[in-house]
């Protein structure tokens, strides 16, 4: 895996500057069943294709941000600070 990533604060950097936070999952809003809780904790969709994911600029500004990336081609579609990312396509 090798590509460039644009930190919303710092700009374009090598991917080795960043830490990967995994695909974005949503934390249950209400008390989940034990099965739902384990699914949230331990299961990943592991998408082969476009997914939204967390990245952390570990060797830079130490900000968390969101990227949309194609996991098979490493094409990064956007990066944005949380709250300013575009709405996911339906």
């Amino acid at each position: 895996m090798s590509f460039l990533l644009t930190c919303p604060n710092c700009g374009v950097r090598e991917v080795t500057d960043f830490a990967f936070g995994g695909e974005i999952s949503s934390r249950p809003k209400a008390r989940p069943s034990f099965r739902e809780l384990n699914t949230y904790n331990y299961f990943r969709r592991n998408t082969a294709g476009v997914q939204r994911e967390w990245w952390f600029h570990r060797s830079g500004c130490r900000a968390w941000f969101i990227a949309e990336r194609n996991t098979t081609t490493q094409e990064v579609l956007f990066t944005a600070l949380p709250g300013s990312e575009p709405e996911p396509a339906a």
Partner: protein
Amino acid sequence: MSRLPEQPGERIARHKQITFTFDGKQVKAYEGDTIGSALYAAGQRTFSRSFKYHRRRGLMCCAGQCPNCMVSVDGAPGARACTEPVRQGMQVEHLNARPSLEFDVMRATDLFGGPFTPPGFYYKTFIRPRRLWPLYEKVLRNAAGLGILREHQEEREWRTEYRRRHADVLVVGGGVAGMAAAAAAAERGADVVLVDEGPELGGRALIESDRQQLGRLVSAVKAGGVEVLTRACALAYFDGLVPVWQGDILHQVRARQVVFATGTIEQPLVFAGNDLPGIMLADGARRLAALYAVAPGNRAVVATTTDRGLHAALALERVGVQIAAVAQLRPDPGPVAEELSRRGIDVLAGYTVLEARGRKQVDGVVIGAVNGGAGERTIACDLILVSGGAMPASSLLLQAGAQTRYDDTRGHFALTDMPAAVFAAGEVIGFDEAELVERSGRLAGLDAVHALGRGDAESQAAAETVRAELSAGARSASVAVAPGVSGSDRGKCFACLCEDVTTKDIAYSIEEGYDSIELAKRYTTVTMGPCQGRMCQLPSVRLMAQQTGQSLGDVGTTTARPPWVSVPMGVLAGRPFEPAKRSSIHGRHRELNGSVKWAGDWRRPYDYGDPQGEALAVNRAAGVIDVSTLGKLLVQGPDAGAFLDRLYPNRFSNLKPGRIRYGVISSDAGRIVDDGTICRLDEETFYVTTTSSGAGAVEEWFSWWLADWGMRVHLTDLTQGLSAVNLAGPKAREIMARVTDLDCSNEAFPYLDGQQAPIAGVPCLILRIGFVGEVGYEIHFPSAHGEHVWDALLEAGSEFGIRPFGLEPQRILRLQKMHIIVGQDTDSESTPYGAAMSWIVKLDKEEDFIGKWALEHYAEEVPTTSLVGFTLADGHVPTEGSVVLDERGSPAGQVTSSRFSPVLRRVIGMAWVPTPLAHDGARITISDEGQTFSGEIQTQPFYDPAGEVLRS
């Protein structure tokens, strides 16, 4: 030394002599020679012994492609003699032959061992009796191999470096096509990097006597400002990143567009004895003559499937090599053959080599009709030139996602689809006339510029013109497809030179059921040697097709994987780099003879020579420890309290300013992540400490949730900016009175209070916590004053018997209090319930918090094991990690901490034990290195169980 007269493009400087040694003997060379050219000029014909059969191998490709000339240079194995330049005084030695290259006892495997050494023989023959395998393995490892690494290497002389290079266009391959592409792109303003394996640009054009095109293109590259990297190998293609190995530097080249002009690899022919020294690839022999003015032989026979071998015959005849005959596998002669005939050279159409003859080197050849008809001829010669076609060097393109399909007319796998941002030019995509090769290079350069979004109408028009010229000029060259093997009844025919795989081995593996190319590769190791398939991929595919009756297209090729060139591990590793963190007080620890060791990224004193005495000093008088490594986070803002309530299982929003509370961070899976103390400085400000090793992770954890929740909180990591020391012991309060005006009485400054006051003139945050179980003050202050505060405390404490203490006495002291160490006493499966800290979880909190749901679940369950203290009567300190046994003698837990306590005068420890045993007075059995010990459980702290000392 026998050299040819001066050649037009020769690399050697005849006025500069160099001497080096080969197996201890002096060899004369010219500057510009390679080890291979110099040795060949000095008459050396055997360069190595083969991997399995220890057969003689000589120069073959003269381009660093085949495995035949691998030697060790100054003790480092793996150099290719044919490309490694000579240096004055270098020590070159052969590999894999004992006692010498000329007399190798392991040759016996070739003469007698053939039937006993089929593929995988070492696992089949030597598998029984099993206990002897270590011995067999030793013998086999000695018999095979590619040199010996020194077990102990002195401080490396070289320091490898990474270099990151961002470019518009990377061109891989500095031949005619690559130079044309680089020049075309650079002329239109692109930032271009051009890499080539050779010492100079030119590629195959360097062996041509007409150097006009070469000179023009080299000038154009120079004029365009292209960055040229020579002796530089592109190793792989990783999603657009191309690592390029150049000597001690690994360039990580990331270009927006990549042009591959990697050319072709001339293929050998497979016949009986096809590995004998004196058999060379046609271009290899030309390189020896053209670049180093070394005659490859006196009398040669040529066998070729294309014009390439015929051109070689012409070129070598011109420099005085007698061409005894040319076997051309094509049935029709063609114009170049006619030229040879005019010069009196016998060209036999439809012929190929059946057998090479000779003991130490070629002294004759048997040629015969390709289709097996009559007319076999034996010809005396000392050189056999073979040219079995040109295979596109497409590995990097395949790694980039290109596809190949078998091309019947060309007899090889041709590229079909090109991925985005990748272009190919020249011979690798099938152009073989110099003019067309240059045009295809120019087109790739222009296409790359347009893909960058640059260029103009003129460049677009130019590209279209070249594209049209290319499709008009493209025609299929006449080639013959080489047979899988010829003369297989006459002796060993090698499909793979690196691993000594014969054609029989491949047939054998198919018989055993390994009938796909990927399986046969793994079973026979064909294509897995140092040549990485350059010499054996196509021949093994042909053999497999022949054996199984499949078409070559159906057999297919093996997957192309990095690295394309064998590369030293040291280059991939880069510069050894191990940063260390040191606290601002580190100099003092050195002066006090602290035994400094690694603790995570930090260098910390484990003790100052007397861990037991240091611990005792804390319990009896006072001690001071440098705890600057603790993580320190400032959490500020209107939502700060609510934020911490959501991060910790207990409450912080109700903590009063100036008060401290202990907290354990849990994950959403209910597992312990870290622990530390939190002091509320004012309504909106909290000072959070974390473990030393968890500092970075906790900061990331906090900021991640903050990013997700978007609360009105600001985080500042003060870990590096603040130093901290912990002063503890019965005399701590008296010492404090000497260094600060702050009222440190128990009434004015009780346990778990945090106050701000100057100490020795330095503004400090003082936390009264129970870090080591005595009255203690954890003092945080700006790092710049580290030594000053440390000195002031030691000086003020000297009359009270203060001692500095290190990590080891701290472990003893904390264990006495059963203070857990996250990561030592807990692991990634530990919950607060198992760790006997259910009191830390406030499930009655109304708000949601991280870990709440999992902890609710675990609160209702009895944990399988629980963390408790234990004592051992007989004085043995069990190794940390020792196993706790259940009543049946089965492993049921483990010891996590154990020490001898000097103040209690007994062995104490903590262990995870089956929960039914986790009560005071229960007996446990600990198994430590074969012995068992009986311990007694204790659930309350060993020292000051009621915490009266702490609060006094």
